[in-house]
């Protein structure tokens, strides 16, 4: 499967997170790595220093997302695989949107617990009232 454009990837990622919503099991796996396939890299001039440490120009990043299905589910066409390539210049914008989508998609994580702080505040106000 070819790579999607960044916008298409985000749209399908939202669908992927939505499909996991309300279920009590399952997983979503996101991966990122440098896109080194089919990229021109200079021949190593020195054997002691690998040529990939200081490339002449920034390289793109490959982002993948799957629903973690395999084996039987793969045969039943239930496995979803998405991938996109992010250009070095659009990295900050991409990750801002990525973070927003992940935050909304991962709704089953434990929300911030505010009950404790409220309890403390109430106690404080009570003690203040008794002393005053």
């Amino acid at each position, binding site marked *: 499967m070819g790579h999607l454009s960044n916008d298409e990837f985000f749209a399908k990622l939202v669908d992927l997170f939505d499909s996991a919503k309300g279920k009590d*099991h399952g*997983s*979503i796996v996101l991966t990122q790595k*440098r896109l080194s396939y089919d990229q021109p890299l200079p021949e190593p001039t020195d054997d002691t220093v690998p040529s990939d440490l200081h490339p002449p120009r920034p*390289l793109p990043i490959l982002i993948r997302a799957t629903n973690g299905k395999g084996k039987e589910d793969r045969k039943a066409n239930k496995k979803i695989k998405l991938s996109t390539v992010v250009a*070095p210049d659009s*990295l900050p914008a991409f990750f801002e949107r990525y*973070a927003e989508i992940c*935050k909304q998609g991962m709704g089953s994580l*434990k929300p911030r617990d505010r009950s404790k702080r409220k309890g403390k505040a109430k106690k404080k106000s009570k003690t203040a009232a008794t002393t005053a």
Partner: protein
Amino acid sequence: MPYYEASQEWLRQSALLLEARPSTTRITTAYHLTNKTGSSKKRQMRRQQQQEQLQTATAATASSPAPRASLTIKTYDPHSGTCLKYRTTKAAEVSRLILSLGQLGRNMAALPTDTDAAIADAGVAEEVGTPGTEKAEGRGSTGGNTGAKGQIQTQPQTQTQTQTHTQVQTQGQGQTGGGGGSGGKGKKKRGKK
């Protein structure tokens, strides 16, 4: 490899790993939904019993409990076999973790990182900062009699001793500042009454 306790430590180690092997290292973020937090059968039985009790007690709100999830971040380099992990269940951390993935993405893409710039700035600040303190000391010593004594003492002494001298001076300033702060507190209390 074990899980890191702090996400900051995971981020630091991952940045180091990426620096060493930028082409082969990959970062995997896994979001797992699960309705059980433990795998032991005893624990599962106990939880089931508790849930049944809860459901009988509060029949009105008998909806099943919200599913629990966890987020695991793993940095793995297949060449060296290095694996760095961090796990969380808190929704509040998601945004920060994904943005730190973006930071690491800069390392992957071989872009100049923000942290490098910050370190360079800090280095410049330090260089500027040291002569600044010396100047301050000079001003202080020209002030009163005690200051003049200090000047006489510092001239033959080594650099480390002059540093301790500046420390004493700053401490003195801190004390006066503290006094002012306590005064402010007192005023606040009066205002309350």
